[in-house]
């Protein structure tokens, strides 16, 4: 199966990533060159991306490809709002590659064939494309340091030569913050994956930033501890990335934010200085808490290379129940009741709507654990030390708020129930192009935005709720799910393809709606490349100005993850 990623950029030509191509089409190349090189009749699975302004070129190309017999062609508009590469940044040359190889050793510098290396274009694709396949960059070089010293030498060199750097962990971010925009050097932490120490008395874990979250949880689990965060991407995401994006997840309700769990960090600043603040102390009130700046900084002011985090004692008695509920108000009231009844043992409270449930049941080819279908579903998890005390989840049935429910009997059923909730993002992404909005709103109004979005899209004629499969509306579904306990809704709109028309209807509508209720435009996903321009809906000018000062203080040359995080200074 061949996957071709076609990049149509204004004023340049289609760049084709395909195992059969040794180099991209150069300036002046036309469709003829492409069709000559490509065996069109065996071409399948073409995804053509275009940055804004190049849509007609992309569509034209796709039509011609179809006409020639190629199959399964999807067009997507890239989410970028940046069309111009910053000319300050040096274009990499042989002397730069030689330096990197001298610091890291040749096996840990991945260079594309175009730049004289060994890597096929597809080898670089995983580093250049984000998890949603919405953002695609063109980096030709990926570096894999194994220590803070190596990161320091690389950053110092890049800073002195104004080489742009994109820091990357597990590449599971949802706002395009982990992939390059143009040809930034990708600095991947995946080879820094050692656990450094675990204090078995206090539970303080010290490890490299490139450790995968699930591996860490398995490791500390052996000693009776648990990581204080848990998210669907745990099998791939790095703890360094989690810290740099201030990841939330499903246990936020119980263990709180990473700002509270991170005990210390080892960070390399853009000028190469290594800041070692890896403490394992739970309490330390000595001066400005600098590590907090790096939690959630998304790699824009330094690279996190080591993390010290407080793990919690692994609860011995875990119960999970899935409940069926008739309305959002009932969901909210069940939450309030559970807070009262389950108090200190409540560890997660998630909800999703019927549309999400249908999609995930179809996607996983499994049946509803409840005996009927309901408009809303709730997942409650309790974690405690005492089995009997923890069966209080049965209480939730007694007040009539909940119509039906099921309690997991054994760990296998617990995983099945969680997979229904954690599988929603993956399965939705498979049904089409997904517009994702991760917002914090007061719990009372949380679901109102879903209704309002549906009405808006229906009025525009591009969506109809419960449309028959034969009716081809561009927008397929509007879904709401999330961590209601934290007031965090994931609003997902699935469409045939990413389209300016749909984007214009959704943005700034969603952001303005959130601003009206004084909510956050990005509850836990961060800013990346997707949200700098809507930062203003949640943070005022004075605050953004202070943020800029901090950025300039740490990274005066602006080499760290450029084009992202903070809005352009106009």
């Amino acid at each position: 199966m061949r996957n071709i990623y076609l990049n149509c950029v204004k004023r340049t030509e289609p760049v084709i990533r395909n195992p059969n191509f040794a180099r991209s089409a150069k300036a002046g190349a036309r469709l003829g060159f492409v069709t000559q090189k490509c065996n069109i009749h065996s071409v399948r699975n073409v995804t053509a991306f275009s940055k804004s302004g190049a849509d007609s070129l992309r569509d034209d190309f796709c039509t011609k490809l179809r006409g020639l017999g190629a199959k399964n062609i999807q067009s997507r508009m890239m989410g970028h709002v940046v069309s111009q590469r910053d000319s300050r940044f040096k274009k990499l040359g042989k002397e730069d590659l030689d330096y990197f190889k001298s610091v890291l050793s040749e096996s840990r510098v991945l260079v594309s064939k175009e730049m004289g290396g060994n890597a096929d274009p597809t080898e670089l694709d995983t580093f250049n494309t984000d998890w949603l396949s919405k953002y695609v960059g063109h980096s030709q070089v990926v570096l894999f340091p194994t220590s803070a010293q190596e990161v320091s030498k690389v950053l110092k060199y890049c800073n002195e030569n104004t080489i742009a750097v994109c820091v990357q962990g597990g590449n599971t971010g949802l706002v395009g913050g982990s992939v390059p925009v143009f040809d930034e050097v990708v600095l991947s932490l995946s080879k820094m994956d050692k656990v450094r120490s675990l204090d078995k008395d206090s539970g303080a874990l010290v490890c490299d930033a490139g450790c995968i979250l699930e591996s860490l949880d398995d490791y500390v689990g052996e000693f009776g501890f648990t990581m204080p965060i848990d998210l669907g991407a745990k099998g791939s995401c790095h703890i360094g990335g989690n810290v740099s994006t201030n990841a939330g997840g499903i246990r936020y309700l119980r263990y709180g934010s990473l700002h509270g769990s991170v005990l210390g960090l080892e960070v390399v600043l853009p000028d190469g200085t290594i800041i070692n603040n890896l403490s394992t102390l739970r309490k330390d009130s000595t001066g400005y808490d600098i590590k907090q700046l790096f939690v959630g900084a998304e790699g824009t002011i330094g690279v996190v290379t080591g993390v010290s985090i407080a793990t919690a004692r692994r609860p011995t008695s875990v119960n999970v129940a899935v409940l069926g509920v008739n309305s959002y108000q009932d969901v909210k009231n069940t939450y309030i009741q559970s807070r009262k009844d389950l108090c200190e043992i409540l560890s997660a409270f998630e909800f999703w709507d019927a549309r999400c449930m249908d999609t995930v049941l179809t996607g996983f080819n499994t049946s509803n654990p409840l005996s009927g279908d309901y408009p809303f579903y709730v997942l409650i998890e309790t974690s405690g030390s005492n089995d009997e005390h923890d069966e209080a989840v049965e209480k939730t049935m007694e007040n009539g708020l909940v119509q039906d429910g099921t309690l997991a009997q054994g760990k296998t059923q617990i995983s099945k129930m969680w997979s229904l909730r954690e599988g929603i993002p993956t399965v939705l992404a498979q049904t089409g192009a997904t517009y994702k909005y991760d917002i914090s709103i007061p719990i009372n109004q949380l679901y109102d935005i879903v209704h309002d979005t549906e009405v808006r899209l229906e009025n525009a004629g591009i969506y109809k709720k419960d449309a028959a499969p034969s009716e081809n509306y561009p927008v397929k579904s509007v879904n709401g799910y999330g961590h209601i306990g934290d007031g965090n809704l994931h609003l997902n709109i699935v469409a045939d393809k990413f389209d300016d028309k749909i984007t214009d209807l959704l943005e700034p509508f969603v952001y303005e709606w959130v601003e009206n209720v004084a909510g956050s435009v990005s509850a836990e996903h961060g800013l990346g490349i997707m949200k700098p321009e809507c930062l203003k809906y949640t943070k005022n000018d004075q605050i953004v100005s202070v943020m800029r000062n901090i950025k300039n203080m740490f990274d005066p040359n602006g080499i760290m993850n450029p084009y992202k995080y903070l809005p352009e200074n106009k």
Partner: protein
Amino acid sequence: MSNLRILVGVKRVIDYAVKVRVNRAQTGVEVANVKHSINPFDEIGVEEAIRIRERFAKAKSPTSVEIVAVSCGPPKSQEVLRTALAMGADRAIHVEYGKDNEQNTIEPLVVAKLFNEIVKKEQPGLVIMGKQAIDDDSGQCGQILAGLMDVSQATNVSKLDVEPMEAPKTLTTMCEIDGGMETLKCELPAVVTTDLRLNEPRFVSLPNLVKAKKKPINKLTPADLGIDIVSKLETLKVNEPPVRKAGIKVESVDELLDKLRNEAKVI
């Protein structure tokens, strides 16, 4: 109106997904504070009994089906009886033996004898058990029981059919064997042991869990049944398998060749 009584054996075991650890005395595995649940094969047995009842009801059979769940073990075995009741069993019998959080030392022969006494009292038409318990993996209880009862046995069953007629006399089963499937027809009463692919157990609904609290669990002791618990086997030692040596990653082909030649000495 006749009655088909199905006896289902259920055992409380360490949950399938838990990583077991050998205890300090090396006499068994750590059971204190470890998550336990119903033996997966027994859960399948309960599910099958309920499905038989549902099939009979759907066919408007003149035979009514009664499901009795039975467990032998320490006080906490009640939890799995509650699960069985919540899934749909009508009543339960708990033969209490042993203490919570201690090693389970009851052997298949003893369990079969206890069940045999209960069978004599309850006169079931069908006994369903899991093919093996996932803690000791003995896989003997059902077969020994059939021998004691002097009735047919169908083991490792992946399909089960009882005719929803007045006083059914036979049952048909299929089980997987190397190279195909084996179909058996047995006379009732019979003992059946369940295999993994027989069915997929249902989730227990909260309303049913609440209802199950009101269903009766009859408590007995081995003495009540006139059975003396005697262990004929003594566990000498339990230890973990030797730790597998980690492999190493090499950075280049040259390094691989060097290691094969000089360290492993295979070329």
